[in-house]
């Protein structure tokens, strides 16, 4: 097993499977669903060796595959994972299974194309996390837009066309500047190898512009305030599965990009501009939190909550220079970065779960408006238990994964600056306010209308989906050590790398 091109299989199996599904368009729904489920479960099983055979002692790339690809551009088919990308790949395979499961009886229109789009998307996202060649990365990064464009556009809500074009153009606009930077780096190093970029000396002027281009590309993807406006639209209009993938995985690619590109390639510019990112992150955490408070649409509320939570991720990533300036040591630096990583994984579970919960209600009531609900707990007690649990973890309840990441980032920001920590910590109040207020209005109180009274509780399929997510949230919340251990070596290596100036001496 060890000699197999595991990563290539993870990238190409779902893509090939997805294309095969497209040609199954006329088969029975049952056959299509089963095929998709089998492929996605096989993917989950295939990705497990990444974890079990992972050597957490080294920061070097593992499961590396290297083949010449476009020789005249000196671009290679180069895949590999380290402690940063490996957990994200597992998150992808795990969430995809749930998305396939969640679509089971719900998607009646063109199920083959729906499943195919998600499987192809899965392969592309894994490719993005595993690519070690800049052009390969860019291709996956952009190719991702096409299936998502179609998912939102075909299976989305009433305003889907506007939302999906906005989503596509926003992200496309962000990433083209990154392309210019990658080409510039090519002219400096003569290749597209990301590791070479990490070591290439760059003048401050070059770093400054390259960093800005990365900030635009990944900032749109995360999304950071003020380029977040595509996300609420996309989430509201996307089908449940689309929202889940978008929130749980696609946003993480922005965070991952900061760790893989922005920080190690342009450390000096990042050090000089860290205030900008910290400012944008804190605005996201505080201001967007308040925006979430006033939402009437559940999906929009969760979308804004995602932006606010992703603010923690970028905050954690960019705290290091303030910490070093303030304390003169590197001790809190790792906590910030790892806190950001844990927050990404945890947010993947929680936001996915929250969107699935809304999906469960939407499938029954065909409404996402908070005002249409009330007293759901009376007719759906099991579902209500799950939703309360996920809401609590969204608000950062200790014992759930939502707490770990936020707590680590807040601790790290205390070392940097009291006011950073103070502002970040307000999310514990605001986050609790908007999540629990929503729960109160939707789940509790009087039964709002006859439709709510007639609701049926979740079936076994929905129970398994939500239950497995609840287990993941709980496991990560109670015992995050295994995840942290995997990351230690890579994060340490990254910290050492970033603290060394790359200005040509």
């Amino acid at each position, binding site marked *: 097993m060890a000699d197999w091109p595991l990563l290539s299989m993870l990238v190409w199996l779902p893509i090939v499977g997805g294309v095969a599904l497209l040609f199954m*368009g006329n088969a029975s729904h049952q056959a299509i669903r089963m095929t998709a489920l089998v492929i996605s479960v096989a993917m989950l099983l295939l990705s497990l060796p990444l974890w079990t055979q992972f050597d957490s002692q080294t920061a070097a790339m593992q499961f590396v595959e290297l083949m010449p*690809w*476009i*020789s*005249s*551009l000196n671009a290679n088919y180069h895949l590999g994972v380290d402690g940063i990308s490996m957990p994200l790949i597992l998150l992808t395979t795990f969430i995809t299974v749930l998305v396939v499961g969640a679509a089971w009886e719900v998607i009646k229109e063109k199920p083959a194309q729906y499943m195919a789009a998600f499987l192809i998307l899965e392969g592309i996202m894994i490719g993005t996390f595993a690519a070690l060649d800049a*052009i390969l990365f*860019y*291709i996956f990064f*952009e*190719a991702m*837009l*096409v299936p998502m*464009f*179609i998912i939102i*556009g*075909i299976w989305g809500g009433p305003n*889907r*066309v506007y939302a*999906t*074009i906005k989503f*596509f*153009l926003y992200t*496309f*606009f962000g990433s*083209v*500047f990154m*392309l*210019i930077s990658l*080409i*510039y780096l*090519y*002219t400096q190093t003569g290749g597209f190898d990301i590791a070479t970029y990490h070591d290439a000396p760059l003048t401050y002027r070059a770093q400054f512009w390259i960093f800005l281009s990365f900030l635009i590309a990944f900032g749109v993807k995360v999304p950071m305030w003020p380029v977040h406006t595509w996300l609420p639209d996309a989430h509201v209009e996307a089908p449940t599965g689309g929202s889940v993938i978008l929130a749980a995985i696609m946003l993480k690619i922005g965070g991952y990009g900061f760790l893989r590109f922005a920080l190690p390639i342009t450390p000096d510019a990042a050090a000089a501009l860290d205030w900008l990112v910290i400012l944008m992150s804190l605005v996201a955490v505080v201001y967007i939190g308040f925006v979430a408070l006033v939402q009437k649409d559940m999906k929009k509320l969760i979308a804004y909550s995602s932006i606010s939570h992703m603010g923690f991720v970028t905050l954690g990533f960019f705290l290091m220079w303030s910490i070093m300036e303030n304390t003169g040591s590197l001790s809190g630096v790792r906590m910030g970065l790892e806190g950001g990583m844990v927050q990404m994984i945890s947010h993947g579970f929680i936001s996915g779960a929250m969107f699935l919960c809304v999906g469960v209600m939407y499938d029954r009531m065909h409404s996402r408006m908070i005002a249409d609900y009330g007293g759901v707990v009376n007719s759906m007690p099991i579902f209500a238990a799950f939703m309360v649990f996920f809401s609590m973890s969204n608000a950062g309840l200790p014992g759930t994964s939502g707490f770990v990441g936020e707590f680590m980032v807040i601790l790290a920001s205390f070392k940097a600056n009291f006011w950073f920590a103070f502002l970040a910590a307000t999310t514990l109040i605001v986050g609790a306010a908007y999540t629990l207020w929503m729960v109160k209005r939707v789940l509790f109180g009087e039964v709002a209308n006859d439709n709510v009274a007639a609701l049926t509780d979740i079936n076994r399929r929905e129970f398994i989906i939500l239950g497995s997510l609840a287990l993941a949230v709980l496991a990560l919340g109670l015992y995050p050590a295994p995840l942290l251990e995997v990351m230690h070596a890579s994060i340490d290596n990254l910290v050492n790398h970033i603290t060394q100036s790359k200005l040509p001496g």
Partner: protein
Amino acid sequence: MNFVAPALTPATPEIVLLALACVVLIVDVMQKTGSRMLTYTLTQITLLLTLVSVIMTRADKTILTFSDTYIQDQMGFYLKVFILIITMIAMVYSRDYLRQRKMERGEYYLLSLFATLGMLIMVSAYSLLNIYLGLELLSLSLYAMVAFDRNSSRSSEAAMKYFVLGAIASGMLLYGMSILYGVTGTLNINEINALLQQGGDISKAQVFALVFIVVALAFKLGAVPFHMWVPDVYDGAPTSVTLFIGAAPKLAAFAMVMRLLVSGMGVLHEHWQGMLIILAVLSIGIGNIVAIAQTSIKRMLAYSTISHVGFIILGVLAGTRDGFAASMFYTIIYAFMSLGAFGVILLLSREGFEADEISDFAGLGRTHPWIAVILMILLLSMAGVPPTAGFYAKLVVLKAVIGVELTWLAIYAVILSVIGAYYYLRVMRVMFFDAADENADHSLATSTDAKVILSVNGLLMLVAGILPGPLLAWCISSM
């Protein structure tokens, strides 16, 4: 005085094409009115034999013949191969269209054969006069083809515009060439280059000649501000002619640019670079922005062509080997994309239904999912979204531009191509997200071979997007 017979081998393909075209002409005249299947078949065989002779006479080194006025080199080889392949595909796409509209006459095939001959001559011409002859042979055939639907006033109007503006451009070219001849005293590209290099100071007359030649090239390429004819001709001409004009002649025009500007007046690079920057900036800008406002897909593609021409110019103006190879790569990819896109329009159209409005594509994703997917690949490729060939075309051009430290130009180009992505997305949106008109007739009236070739054409953009290596290597080896 010795008379040495010139080596004829480098011109074999042109000789074969001309001889066989005359045979086709005679055979066609002998036929009774009615089906032109025989003419069509002979045309395809002619093109195929020409292609075979191009491949058979391939030489590893550059050969000059006819007193150094005719050249055979790697760039010429690849361009000729692609011109012939593209013309053959264009003929396959056109046949049904012509037949359904009762326009299938022998002249159509003959004119396209002579146009192809003109293109081959343009590719190989190595003296000012030969370049001009090739260009005129191509242009005159195209003027007649645009007017081919003689009952349509739009078609005639387009042909008239094309003819008048094309004639002005030819005049410009001739004027520029005559000044260049006056300055250097020779028509031969190599000698012009040598004389200009010796010249030391660049005289005003040389730059004066350059201006006229660049203007003429811009006219022929359809670069802003000399683009006025493009939308009208694309829109007014029968779609099969638009398809023909949009694809292979761009390759010939690229060869003409290379021979004149690079081989001939390479010394004046810093002068033409500035002019080309203006052309590229305007073409990319106007092309992409005006395309957004179009409701006719043919006009939209016309403006998109203008923006693509801007990208092709971008690679040339870099003035490096990388840049020329990038432009050639872009031109070839573009020719295939344009071929496919107009091919889809031809495929969907039938007697009385032109499928030339964007709204005609509504619900295509439901009625004909496979064709919709093919068109989606082509549109994504035009927008430059990976993993399609169009992405690499943009990538290599941008790389060349950044390589000569014109990064601002690259940034400008990518911003405009994001704006451009919108109108391609809009067509995709109409295809996949809008509902089809229930009452309309959605049947296809196209033969199987066109459908198969179109599928290959579309999928090729995806395959070349995943494995662009070979084509890129060919283009680099051509320079």
